[in-house]
């Protein structure tokens, strides 16, 4: 089964360009107090790499490919899960509404 979407060089460039502007715009207006959680949050988002690693592992044909694929899924899963947990823990402490009044 071939992918239904075929992304050629120029379409890829358009996607990259628009995504880059999106990232720039999102971060550009963030207050300094959120820099650490946001760095951690963006760290979580690139944990999506685990999906690519799963594709590589499921399509592995040799032992070495299986080993590297396994390694990739392991690391990617750690990136995604770890990134989520620490970001969530940090943001949990930011409760501005009931503290503003003091």
């Amino acid at each position, binding site marked *: 089964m071939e992918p239904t979407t075929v992304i050629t060089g120029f379409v890829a460039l358009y996607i990259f360009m628009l995504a880059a502007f999106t990232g720039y715009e999102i971060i550009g207006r963030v*207050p300094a107090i959120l820099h650490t959680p946001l760095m*951690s949050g963006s760290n979580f988002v690139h944990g999506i790499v685990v999906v690519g690693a799963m594709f590589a592992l499921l399509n592995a044909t040799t032992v070495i490919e299986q080993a590297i694929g396994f390694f990739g899924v392991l690391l990617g899963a750690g990136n995604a899960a*770890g990134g989520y947990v620490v970001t969530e823990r*940090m*943001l949990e402490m930011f409760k501005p509404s009931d503290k503003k009044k003091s």
Partner: protein
Amino acid sequence: MSPQLLIDISALLASFLFIYGLKRMSSPVTARSGIVVAGVGMLVAVLAAFLYYFGVSEAAKPHLTTNTILAAIALGVGVGWAWWSGKKVAMTSMPQMVALYNGMGGGAAAAIGAVELLKTSGHHGALPLVVTIIGSLIGAISLSGSLIAWAKLDGRINGTWRVKGQQLINGTVFLATLVLGLYIALVAEGHAHPAVTGAFFALALIFGVLMTMPIGGADMPVVISLYNAFTGLAVGFEGYVLQNPALMIAGMVVGSAGTLLTLLMAKAMNRSVANVIFSNFGPAGDEVQGEIKGSQKPAEAGDAAINMRYASKVIIAPGYGLAVAQAQHKLFEFVKLLTDAGVEVKFAIHPVAGRMPGHMNVLLAEAGVPYDMIFDMEDVNGEFKEADVAIVIGANDTVNPAARTNKSSPIYGMPILNVDQAKQVYVVKRGQGKGYSGVENELFFADNTNLVYGDAQKVMVQMIQAVKSLDGGGH
């Protein structure tokens, strides 16, 4: 509905949820829900990834059961370990944990590239191959570099490691890596001997180590942020190779956001990113030390506390040392006593207080310090000259006047908190050590400075007792 269509829909949904989640994370009010939104996107994408089961290549079909079991094990172990480690890590250790998770993402991107490059059946064209190589290179550098950053921040590697002609060595290794990569992509056209591919990855990993080792601990936040952007780019590039738009979008969003964040951090330290990476803090200013006049004058915690109790305005400059001593809760208790007695108290946060920008805000928020008491450096710096007392707890480099005046100091030019302008300065300190950058601090020798020696938490307890016994009664 075919499995591939489901995968495509899930990728679209995940991309939307990531961007929407990050957007929500950019405001304190909605931040908490933002990470949950992004988390749902991740869950959708990972569950859908099991649908690749139905679409593997003919060659991989005999291995499909094994591969699926392997994937489930890797996911289980990876998620389990990360969940456990992420739950138990202390807030003070957050930066190195982010570095570690980030390095893992870079490693995963490099692994995808490695599997692609090892494939003998050719669907390769020059462009995808070059992109695979670049993604692998960046991912591998991010992996080994982040591991070094983690080890340094975690105190597993101490000091910096420099040799003569280091730039030359680094340059040579990088060039060799690049040449090997281009050979694999353009000359061997993706059919290079596995040993060559292996050498390419080994060199890329070595370069990550070489690049990070000479960088001092104080600069690590910038480096982590840079590697965060690197991993994003690597993921984006490998996403193109795999023709997966979700990886491309998520990777590039993080790549650009991370780059901007890196620039903001470097700016806060008054340095360029190139300056951080290529010319490091010099060998810690031994020659600077001798020039400092005056002496360090000690003070009792109780006396300092009572002085603050009768002040009208107190500004607190907290640093990482406060959090290491786990004293932020006691500090806030002391601050509440002061404010109850009518003293105006403000927290002054240097942009790089803690180990990452915004890290100190996280640590104070953990102790329950309300937002409206916490001020950024540029908003509060003009107020130090009106303050009766400035108290520095666990901070050092961010309050060192040498950054303003001493051109030979390695931290010269970095904006600092103007605590030395307060009428009285107290510095709570464990001992007579230097700051993270290894620079001696003139502030500690100034006429209006007294040092309160001791563990920050014990000092805060003494201060609380002093004020309480004073207000509690006169009997």
